[in-house]
């Protein structure tokens, strides 16, 4: 089992109702982690319902869903950014 720090921002955070949580997982990739999270509860299902409109960062760098997850990684989910 890996320990992963998962973070949520903007409407992902609002839908899940958490800004972050420590997750124990067997997921090898971000995509597998998403499958696990969606299976948990309605609010996760809702937050992850449209993967095309989600962005992922692993250890503070933008990545895609097929990125491998190591033990101790920080994985963040958020909508497309609107800075500037």
């Amino acid at each position: 089992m890996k320990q992963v720090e998962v973070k949520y921002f903007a409407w992902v955070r609002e839908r899940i109702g958490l800004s972050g949580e420590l997750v124990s997982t067997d997921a090898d990739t971000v995509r597998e982690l998403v499958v696990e999270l969606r299976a948990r509860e309605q609010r996760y299902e809702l937050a992850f319902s449209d993967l095309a409109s989600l962005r992922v960062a692993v250890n503070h760098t933008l990545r895609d869903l097929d990125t491998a997850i190591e033990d101790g990684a920080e994985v963040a989910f958020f909508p497309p950014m609107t800075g500037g």
Partner: protein
Amino acid sequence: MRVEVQAEPFVPGEQLSKFHADRIDAGALVSFSGIVRSDKLDPVNMLEIEHYPGMTERAIRAIVDEAVERWQLIDCLVIHRHGQLFPGDHIMMVATLARHRGAAFAAAEFLMDFLKSRAPFWKKEFTAQGQRWVDSRQEDEAAIDRWSG
């Protein structure tokens, strides 16, 4: 190459004066600043900017490094606020110092395009009708693509 991510307000003119040390090899200084805009028909009372503290500065530095290398900038400044902002407030600014004006302009536009959709900020507008997250726009992604030529 100063990068500031801050809740505090700033005055672009003051930052521009501080930024430009008298380098005699610099010929061109460009600045951009983004302002909270409110429409008469659909007034915005407040803009809340959320960011990702562990990642924001790192993401901005990567964008700055690329601009500096690509246009051989003599200096470069990025300031971006988070938290609660109000109409007329300055959201962020960039400044670029280069030998020639083409480089200074291009680098400032590059920085803006990437800060817009590659730095972890999210804007929420508070209006009389309620709150709404600002949607990213298709043309923001398209703007990124023009730099990959």
